[in-house]
Structures are given as structure tokens and as C-alpha cells.
């Protein structure tokens, strides 16, 4: 019986348990539903849960534990000279034994006997059956493979019996518990609650896991490179190609990358905030219902475009356009047609990132502006203020904290944005202020340090984790602060 058949049978038992439980509850109630604590379906679900859940848990544990136990017991039977080998080569031998065991099952009894007598034939025999073996098997391996097969068969049999017993037993136990005053509904609901808790803790635990793994790798990095050189270093020069050079020779200064990130983010916000905010004001205060119903989805489509597409746009359209127009302007002014805006530049990346951010700013601010109570607007209009005075003096000040929060959230997106800057900002880690020149960002460097054939032990690659955790902490702080502001703002109207 395979695992999936076993699962199907368990599910069938649970189903039967459900039906039986509901029926029992129905007959106990004697037609008057008020005499039972819960509706019949709850009793049915209770029985089903008690049969399926413990059985599934047992199966899960078995699937994890049994192979490990069998593995170690086979290995303990290895001849002494094999045991003397390294763990890795023992692992290889075990892998081969598994292959042989799979092959043995495909052979007929006669062929198996022949193979046992003459291990050299085994490879050909199995090859004929379509089972490939990595090398020439040794004598002990065939015995071990046979052991493995018997142990697996016994384990499977035991497993099937145990799981089915638990399923039936659980169902029977739950079935007997059914009584008029038995609170099946509450029990079922607590199981549902538990599964909800499990689901949400998985999300949280994953985050914790990601942070932990980044932190450990980052500590490895800081063991090689002093933290102050990383955080306060002004030169980024990891020296990849220097063959034979000692690892610590590279310089890992964060400052140029951080400045590039902030600068490009700043330029992006310079485009995104005014445009997004004005769009939000128009949409929430002036646009008619019809215009709104068309433009809002359109803006949301803009938010759904993958950022790599914006990256293309920057690389193939905006960058060359800015370069060409700058050379035209320069030529008209001085007669020398050389461009002063590079195709990859802070301006290109910032501009395109700004376009990407517009929908975030506008839809977040739109929600916040619409949330300002109508009574405030009426109060102002009723005093003879015009619409724009009302927006300027009442609506926007009231919405300001929320808008600031929205802008901070957008800023944290800008800081973490990768694809656009990879394609449009350049890779030169420099400290400079000219927006027409290329600069690079933290995210770009994380990508470039981690792409290629690398071992994960040199500072050149480990630095990516230090960069990652730095970025993570910056955006985390921004988001927490933004949430704090937005929440405070909400309280004001509740």
C-alpha cells in the first residue's frame, strides 16, 4: 500500500466517521435540535477530526523518522573498512545500496539469487531492467540492499497498520463521546482556531528564519572585516578578480552605496510624491464617479507592472533619450555635441523609479484623503470656503500624518527597489552629487556580489548579507515609523 492509498483510506474513514457522528447526534436529539448542545454537523466534524488528525500526524512523523532509523541501522552493519572511510563516501555507498535495493525489487527471484552469487553480473542484469547503478557493487552491498528492502517492507506494513488503527480508534473514541451535553461545536472551533494560529506562525517564523540566516552570514562577514570599516568606509572595492590575493585586501565601504541608494530614492520621490499626491487630490476631491471608476483601475494597473519592465523602459528608452537630448542642448549652447547626461545615471534611475512609485503614493494617499470625514468638509464649505480652500486648509492638514506615513512607506519601497537600478543606475560605486552621472545602490551590489560562480565563504560574497541586513533594518525602521504615524492618525477619527 503506498502512502497516497493510505491517505485516501484515512480520508474515507474520516468521512464515514463524519456521517456516523452526524447521524448519531441526529438520533440522540430525537428530532428536537434544541436537546443537543451543537448542530449534528459539528458532532460529525468532531469525529472526522479525531480520526484524521492524529492519523495524519502519526503518518507525518513516521515518514520523517523511519528512513532515518533504517539508514543508521544499515550503516551500523557496514564492514569495518567501509566504516573507516569519511562520512561523505559512506553516504555515497549508502546511495548505491539504495539503488541496488530498488533494482533488486525489479529482478525475478532467480535473477536475484544469481546476482547474490556473482555481484559482477548485477550491473548488467539491472541495466537490462532499466535501473542504472553508479559503480560496480561490492558483495556487502547486496546483502545490505536485501536488508534494506526487508526493513522497508516491514516498516511500511507496521506504518499502515498503525495509521489505520489510530484513524479507526480516534473515530470510535470520538463517536462514543457524543452526548447531548457534549460541546462538539466548541471543540471543533478550537481545532479551527489552532490551525489558524499555525498558519500565521508559519508566516512569522519564516521571517524570523530569514533574519536569523542573514544575521549568521553577516556575523561571518564581520569576523573577517571589522564593522567600522564596513559601516564608515568610503571606498567600495571588493577586488573580485585579484587571483592569489588574500581575501581581506578588498575594501567594503558601505557609504558610497548607501549614498547612491538614498540619492536615487530621493530623486524618485521628487517625481513620485508631487505627481502622486496631486493625482490623489484630484481623484478624491474633484473627479466625478465616472472618471474615478476609469482612472483608479488604470493607476492600479501601473502598480502591477513588474519592475523589470520599468528597467527595460529605463535602459532602452529613457536613458538614451536623456543622453541624446542632453547632447542636443549642449550642442545648441556651445556648439559641442557631447552629452552631459549619461545613459545610466541617477536621473534616469530616479525618474523611472518615480514613475513606478506614483501609483503607490496616489492610491495610499487617496484612501487617506477619502477617510477624512465628510462632516469636516461640510463644516468648511458651510462657512463659505471654496473647494480648494477646504482641501488646502482642512482636508490636507487633517490627512497630513497619514500622508506622511504613506510617503515613508513608499520611500522604503524606493530603497529596496532592485531591478530598475540594476539596469538604469550603473555599477560604479562613487560618492558624488551630479545627478547626470551613474551611481550605484546597495541592492545593485548585492546582486553583483551574489551572481556568478562563488564560494560562500569569502568576504566578497558574505558582504551581500551584511548589505542585506543593513537594508532590511533601514526599511524596517521606516515601515514601523510609518505604521506608527498612520495608526496615530486613525485614532484621531475613531
Amino acid at each position, binding site marked *: 500500500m503506498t502512502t497516497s492509498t493510505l491517505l485516501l483510506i484515512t480520508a474515507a474513514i474520516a468521512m464515514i466517521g463524519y456521517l456516523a457522528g452526524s447521524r448519531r447526534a441526529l438520533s440522540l436529539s430525537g428530532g428536537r435540535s434544541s436537546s443537543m448542545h451543537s448542530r449534528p454537523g459539528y458532532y460529525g466534524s468532531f469525529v472526522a477530526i479525531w480520526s484524521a488528525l492524529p492519523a495524519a500526524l502519526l503518518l507525518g512523523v513516521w515518514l520523517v523518522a523511519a528512513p532515518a532509523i533504517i539508514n543508521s541501522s544499515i550503516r551500523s552493519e557496514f564492514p569495518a573498512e567501509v566504516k573507516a572511510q569519511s562520512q561523505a563516501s559512506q553516504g555515497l555507498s549508502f546511495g548505491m545500496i539504495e539503488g541496488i535495493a530498488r533494482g533488486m525489487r525489479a529482478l525475478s527471484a532467480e535473477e536475484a539469487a544469481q546476482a547474490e552469487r556473482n555481484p559482477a553480473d548485477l550491473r548488467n542484469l539491472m541495466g537490462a531492467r532499466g535501473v542504472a547503478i553508479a559503480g560496480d557493487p561490492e558483495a556487502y552491498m547486496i546483502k545490505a540492499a536485501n536488508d534494506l528492502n526487508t526493513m522497508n517492507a516491514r516498516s511500511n506494513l507496521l506504518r499502515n497498520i498503525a495509521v489505520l488503527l489510530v484513524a479507526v480508534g480516534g473515530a470510535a473514541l470520538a463517536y462514543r463521546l457524543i452526548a447531548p451535553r457534549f460541546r462538539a461545536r466548541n471543540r471543533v472551533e478550537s481545532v479551527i482556531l489552532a490551525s489558524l494560529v499555525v498558519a500565521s506562525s508559519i508566516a512569522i517564523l519564516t521571517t524570523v528564519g530569514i533574519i536569523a540566516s542573514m544575521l549568521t552570514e553577516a556575523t561571518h562577514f564581520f569576523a573577517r572585516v571589522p564593522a567600522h570599516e564596513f559601516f564608515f568606509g568610503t571606498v567600495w572595492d571588493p577586488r573580485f578578480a585579484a587571483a592569489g590575493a588574500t581575501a581581506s585586501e578588498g575594501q567594503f565601504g558601505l557609504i558610497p552605496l548607501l549614498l547612491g541608494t538614498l540619492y536615487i530614492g530621493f530623486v524618485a520621490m521628487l517625481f513620485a510624491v508631487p505627481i502622486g499626491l496631486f493625482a490623489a487630490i484630484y481623484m478624491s476631491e474633484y473627479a466625478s464617479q465616472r472618471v474615478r471608476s476609469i482612472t483608479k483601475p488604470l493607476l492600479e494597473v501601473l502598480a502591477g507592472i513588474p519592475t523589470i519592465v520599468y528597467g527595460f523602459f529605463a535602459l532602452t528608452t529613457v536613458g538614451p533619450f536623456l543622453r541624446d537630448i542632453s547632447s542636443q542642448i549642449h550642442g545648441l549652447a556651445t556648439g559641442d555635441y557631447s552629452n552631459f547626461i549619461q545613459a545610466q545615471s541617477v536621473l534616469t534611475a530616479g525618474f523611472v523609479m518615480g514613475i513606478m512609485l506614483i501609483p503607490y503614493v496616489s492610491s495610499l494617499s487617496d484612501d487617506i484623503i477619502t477617510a477624512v*470625514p465628510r462632516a469636516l468638509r461640510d463644516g468648511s*464649505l458651510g462657512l463659505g470656503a471654496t473647494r480648494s480652500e477646504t482641501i488646502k486648509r482642512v482636508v490636507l492638514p487633517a490627512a497630513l500624518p497619514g500622508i506622511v506615513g504613506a510617503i515613508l512607506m513608499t520611500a522604503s519601497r524606493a530603497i529596496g527597489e532592485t531591478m530598475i537600478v540594476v539596469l538604469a543606475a550603473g555599477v560604479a560605486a562613487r560618492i558624488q552629487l551630479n545627478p547626470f552621472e551613474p551611481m550605484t545602490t546597495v541592492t545593485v551590489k548585492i546582486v553583483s556580489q551574489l551572481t556568478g560562480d562563488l564560494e560562500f565563504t569569502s568576504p566578497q560574497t558574505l558582504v551581500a548579507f551584511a548589505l542585506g541586513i543593513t537594508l532590511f533594518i533601514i526599511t524596517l525602521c521606516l515601515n514601523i515609523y510609518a505604521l506608527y504615524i498612520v495608526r496615530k492618525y486613525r485614532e484621531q477619527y475613531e
Partner: protein
Amino acid sequence: MNMMTEAAVEKALDQRMNDLSYKMIGKDVSVYYGEKRALFDVNLNVRQNTVTALIGPSGCGKSTFLRTLNRMNDTIDNCRVTGRITLDGDDIYDPSIDVVELRARVGMVFQKPNPFPKSIYENISYGPRIHGLARSKADMDQIVEASLQRAGLWNEVKDRLQESGTGLSGGQQQRLCIARAIAVSPEVILMDEPCSALDPIATAKVEELIHELRSNYTIVIVTHSMQQAARVSQRTAMFHLGQLVEENDTDKMFTNPDDQRTQDYIMGRFG
């Protein structure tokens, strides 16, 4: 009326429109929300320096009528007003009328106190600043103090003018809103159930205030409380299902109304 010729009707109407004791005159006022008609040819006049109470069961169009008087209905999409409403003889729906100016002359106080989330001082100075009523800081201080005095709030807030208006109690907030309306020196003040969110003591204060304001302003008030209508108003108008049922002296309305529906409503038989 049936016997008069059309010209005579016209003439009589003109006469009434010019009659200065009527501050605002509504003639055949109908209001539509999209396809739905909320008011049916209402003819109601508002007398100068008088408190006019609008009563009637919920949904009968009291707020709707009140809002036509300062064109607050303009702020509602798909709301349409027909008929003619004048303020001192000028049609307020005439294209040449600036609605901003109109609302400065016809102020409004809402059912739920809605102070701006600004300081008490700024709440009051908001209107005068927009309309440029104060030439200097001292002028503004003066307006703020006078408005708060009139609204009977000065003594309670004079030491905390810079604190937020939303931090006041409900009754204080409502009086702040009245002070805010007074600050732009309106001629008419519209009040839509101004006491419905207040406790009896705060209500008594607001009613007292309305009483005092009558000498300087024309007031139209919507209320669900018959006692309140009887206490504060001199004229009462009864609405039912979007129609004006009866308009009369308050004393007569509450003792001997002309219309059976008014009597039923006042006796609490429906609504």
C-alpha cells in the same frame, strides 16, 4: 387664489418677495436626488429675526430643504434643485450669485459637532481669515473673543484657546461650531438638529443661545423634539413625505393646528 388672474398672482408674489419682513422666500422648491424626488413644490418663507422650526417624521425632507437655503446640496453629486429661493429678494440660484458669498451670509451648524482638528482659536478664525474680515492680529483676536462670547463659550475656553477644538466636550464642541458660524457675521443661521448629540444640560445652553441670537440673526432650525420646537421657535413648519403640510405660528401649531397630520404628529401618533 383660484379666482385671481395669472398676472395678479404674479404681482402678489412680487409684493411678497419685496416684503422685507421675509428674509428668505422659497417658491415651488423641489429637490431630486438622481431620479428620486425628495421635495415636492415647497413654498416656505423665513421671517427676519425669527426662529423658524422645521419638524416632521424622519426622511420627510427637513434637512434637504434646509440645505437648499445655503446651497449645501450643491456638494452632493446628482442632487438637483428646481424652483426659486431668494435672500433679501435676490435669487440665490442665479448664476451671477457666488455660492461662497452666499454661504458666508447663510451660515450652517450641523447635527454632529464637527470642529476642525485645529486649535480653538483657529477654528473660529478660519472663516474670517478666508473672507478677509480681519485686517490685523488684534482685529482677529477681537472677532474670536466676540464670537465665543456670543456663543457663551468664552469663559470656559479663554485660557485654552491654543488647545485642540476636538478636545472639548460634545456640548462645548457644538457651541464652538455655532461660534465658528457667527464669526463670519452671517445674516441667517441654519441649524440641523444641533442638539441631537447633546445631553439635556448642554441642550439647554444651546437653546438659551438660540434665544439670544434671535435679536441679531434669522434662524432656521430642524428638530425632532417637539418641546424644543415649542421652546425656541416663533414659527413652525411641518413636513411630511417631501411636502410642506402646514406653516404657522408656533403657539397655534402646538395648540390648534389647521392640518390633521400636524396634530397627529405632534400628538405622537406617527413618525
